[in-house]
């Protein structure tokens, strides 16, 4: 009997690959007809294809790229520079390139003192996020009874913490619980720069820049790529090209992938998982069941509540997944031109010029309303891969936030999706006049679609709020952060486990390590 993996997103595929390498022959079951979960490239209008959801990678952990031989399999990673360009309502633009000195030159147009401090900030962020990155590879230790191996790991981490030196040690301790608005406020005065950096602390969350703990989110994201403003790594053809190659790697390693296989239940006997049940009633026996679905979907939808202890169920019910991200893909007749930019924007575009702007966008969502001015993060993937659109035409891929999963007064997203599409185009129009008239088609993916089509409960793109109480040893809940679950031979490997920081594959790889150990005869 093979171990069965539920879901073929990045983490599911990575887990499958490493389990296959460890000698198991995993079977990956994907509900949809296409492999890749949130990392897919899909047609959305005649002749137009787009990264349906994610348009940038975490980035993936280099070791995973190496082990899965993704480049040999044809993936062309691209790292546009500038990584991100922040757009200002006054028509100016601030590009942040990788090189801190060059970036500082661009910042100087907005603030001399910010330009002077930028280099130091890059260094401080690099050092502190570098430490956080070490935690990412760890299986979170038990707090109440750490094993010898865990104590040894903790000791090593402790030494690495000390090696940071007093200034950065305290920085790390302060930054984590801080509001990211305060964090950027301590360094910078320019609203545009504050906004583009702070956005890394709130993307995908139901927290505004003034929410405490968003400093930790910034560090958690920066661990994957410690550049202020975030990563822009993607692949030619979009993240779908990556999962496509990952699927090949899984098959080559001896795994099997089945699409259109909708798992509706996990069979449990004698408190151990014995297999999965598909929508058509087929039962597939399994030596282990590994779910890359989110914790709520796994325990509240796939497992019969009778098989779980009530206290654990309560905790999973209290696991917070308030989705706030929507996705809008636009088919454009030609390349739009953004104010303040001479060249086409190769990296990400950031619309969220300042802390107040971002916080106001968040405020509305607290009451179940759409913001008047949303925070947007956009890319034009056709610049890297023109084949995604007919000749001369382009695709604009836009994340829009804060779009609350639960609308006020029980209103339906089915009715509100048009409003959302209009709102995004209207917002873009301020920064790229004339864009509206270029739109030939649009695809609007609401938080409800994220739940219904992609299976993310609450539409939460990280499979659970990355708040301090749901990270590391608490992800998804204290005592169950080691990829095991209260049901024997049922494991988690998705973003709802540590670290879960975007499309990095780290959760899947960490999980595979623990699962392979547990499945050893």
């Amino acid at each position, binding site marked *: 009997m093979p171990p069965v993996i539920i879901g073929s997103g990045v983490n599911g595929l990575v887990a499958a690959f490493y389990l296959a390498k460890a000698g198991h022959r995993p079977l990956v079951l994907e509900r949809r007809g296409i492999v890749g979960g949130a990392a897919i490239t899909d047609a959305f209008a005649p002749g137009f294809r787009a990264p349906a959801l994610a348009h940038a990678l975490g980035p993936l952990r280099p070791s995973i790229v190496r082990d899965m031989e993704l480049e040999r399999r044809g993936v062309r990673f691209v790292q546009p520079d500038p990584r991100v360009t922040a757009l200002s309502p006054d028509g100016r633009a601030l590009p942040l390139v990788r090189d801190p000195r060059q970036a500082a030159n661009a910042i100087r147009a907005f603030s001399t003192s910010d330009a002077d401090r930028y280099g130091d900030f890059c260094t401080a962020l690099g050092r502190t996020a570098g430490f956080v990155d070490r935690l990412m590879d760890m299986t979170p230790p038990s*707090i*109440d*009874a750490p094993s010898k191996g865990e104590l040894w790991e903790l000791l090593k981490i402790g030494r690495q913490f*000390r090696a940071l030196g*007093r*200034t950065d*040690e*305290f920085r790390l*301790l*302060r*930054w*984590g*619980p*801080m*509001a990211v608005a*305060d964090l950027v406020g*301590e360094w910078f005065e320019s609203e545009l720069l504050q906004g583009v950096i702070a956005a890394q602390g709130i993307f995908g969350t139901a*927290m505004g820049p*003034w*929410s*405490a*703990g968003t*400093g930790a989110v910034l560090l958690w994201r920066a661990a994957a790529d410690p550049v202020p403003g975030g990563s822009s790594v993607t692949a030619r053809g979009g993240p779908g090209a990556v999962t496509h190659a990952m699927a090949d790697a899984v098959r080559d390693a001896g795994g099997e992938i089945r699409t259109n296989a909708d798992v509706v239940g996990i069979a449990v006997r004698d408190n151990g998982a014995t297999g999965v049940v598909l929508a058509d009633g087929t039962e597939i026996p399994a030596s282990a069941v590994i779910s890359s679905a989110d914790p709520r979907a796994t325990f509240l939808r796939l497992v019969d509540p009778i098989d779980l202890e009530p*206290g654990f169920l*309560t*905790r999973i019910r*209290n696991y*917070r997944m308030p989705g706030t991200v929507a996705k809008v893909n636009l088919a454009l007749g030609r390349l739009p031109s953004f104010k303040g930019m001479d060249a086409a924007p190769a990296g990400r575009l950031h619309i969220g010029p300042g802390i*107040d702007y971002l*916080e*106001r966008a968040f*405020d509305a969502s*607290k*009451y179940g309303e759409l913001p008047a001015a949303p925070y947007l993060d956009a890319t034009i993937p056709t610049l890297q891969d023109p084949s995604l659109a007919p000749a001369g035409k382009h695709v604009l891929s836009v994340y829009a936030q804060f779009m609350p999963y639960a609308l006020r007064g029980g209103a339906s997203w089915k009715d509100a999706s048009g409003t959302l599409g209009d709102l995004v185009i209207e917002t873009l129009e301020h920064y790229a006049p004339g864009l509206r008239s270029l739109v030939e088609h649009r695809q609007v993916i609401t938080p409800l679609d994220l739940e219904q089509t992609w299976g993310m409960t609450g539409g939460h793109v990280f499979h659970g709020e990355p*708040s*301090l*109480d749901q990270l590391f040893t*608490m992800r998804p*809940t*204290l*005592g169950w952060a080691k990829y095991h679950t209260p049901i024997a031979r049922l494991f988690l490997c998705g973003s709802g486990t540590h670290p879960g920081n975007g499309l990095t594959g780290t959760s899947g790889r960490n999980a595979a390590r623990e699962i392979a150990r547990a499945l050893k005869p």
Partner: protein
Amino acid sequence: MNYDVIVIGGGHNGLVHAAYLARAGRKVLVLERRHVLGGAAVTEEIFPGFKFSVCSYVVSLLRPEIIRELDLPRHGLEILPLDGTFTPMPNGDYLWRVNDHAKTRREIARHSKLDAEAYDEYGKAMVDMGRFVKPILTMTPPDPTTLAPRGLKDLLFLARRFQALSPGDQYNQVQLMTMSAVDFLDQWFETDVLKATMSASGIIGTFLGVRSPGTAYVLLHHYMGEIDGAFRSWGLSRGGTGAISNAIAAAALEAGVEIRTRTAVSKIIVKDGSAAGVVLDNGDYITANVISSSVDPNLTFLKMVGTEHLPDEFVEDVRRYKFRGSSGKVNMALDALPDFTCLRGPGAHLRGAISISPSVEYMERAYDDAKYGHFSRRPYIDIVIPSLTDPSVAPPGKHVMSCFVQYAPYHLKDGTWDDQRDAFGDTVVNTIAEYAPNLKDIILHRQVVTPLDLEREWGLTEGNIFQGELTLEQLFFLRPAPGWAQYRTPIRNLFMCGSATHPGGGIMGAPGRNAAMTVIGGRS
């Protein structure tokens, strides 16, 4: 004349500090700028016949060991019970929680049967958590970057204590330290008004909303009282909060402390990296072996010491220490009692706290206004009518009403606090009048205390009532500055003993006492 210790500031922490030092044989001088002792724990007769607890208005967590060791009851301290919290609602209903558990359970059941059941469990869990946290209040925070054996021992003590908790309690504890009050309460309760009024305790004095992570922790404070003995911790002091300060001052005087009011310190003199004395604003110079400052770090370091004596990194830490006052006070002299539409007449519901916190959304919207530099159009108000419990504070038949109001951001977007004073006072009166319409007709006198007043008159920078935000990055070993959480400062023989040090604000007295232990222990 040379003193062993000069204490700057005669607030409750400064006085506690002085009393402990004197009892340990030190020759202590306390210098207070105002004409009256107590700092923000002060009673003043603002309007003839009416005594207002002008700033701080309830006894929150005054440490029982301080009451005992300084024998405060003998020095006149008498704490009267403040029973219950009454929350009127716009729909004509109300929520009225009292100390009597069975009664409260019945009242909550009126709103939700499930919540009534959860309330028991919640109470039990919180008492357990309170037991865990309590010893941390009286401990000197360890330095997490240290390699010194004592620091490591303290860190290990904390780790062990945490490990000793049951898995369920560990889970709760982690949640309490990191979550927002509303998210935490959402896990237990469904009644909106219950969550709103309970979560209010998490935001008092902070620039955070009830949905801001980090606000859950303060929920605990309400339960620590049960451990100390119900009435001790939450109550009114007979004669107003100033009576607490007076009792502590009496204990200090008895122990031999010398206290001077109307004596403002303008400079702390530093010689060869060591504090040598203070210069008063009249130019007098008083020397001492040790200076303890109970005023906030902004005044202590940037005004009195001067940056030239301090390491750059420390100056930077002090500069970015967040004050951001967010609250004000409106005190009223009343001709009669307010009459609440949802529960008419002068019943027992007026004898406890009256909380204007009708819904979570109301609370959150109040915060939204403040984030952009406006006082809340409809603020959260915590009302107490002390004259019902302690008739000595008002003429017969008349009353004083103390209204704590949030949010009132120190930094206003438009205008100054002096221009906005009346508008702010009107907002408070109008808000309460929505629930008790007779209020407007019974006001004899109204005193509005703005964040700017708190700064100018009480020396609280930016009007922060806790001498600095009680956010996670400014608590415990980070309060007031990373590496300087042990009551010591970069200047030898200069100590801190006010609310800006661990465990922070409120009429607790713990910073003053903890700091005294440090000075006595000579750990410098």
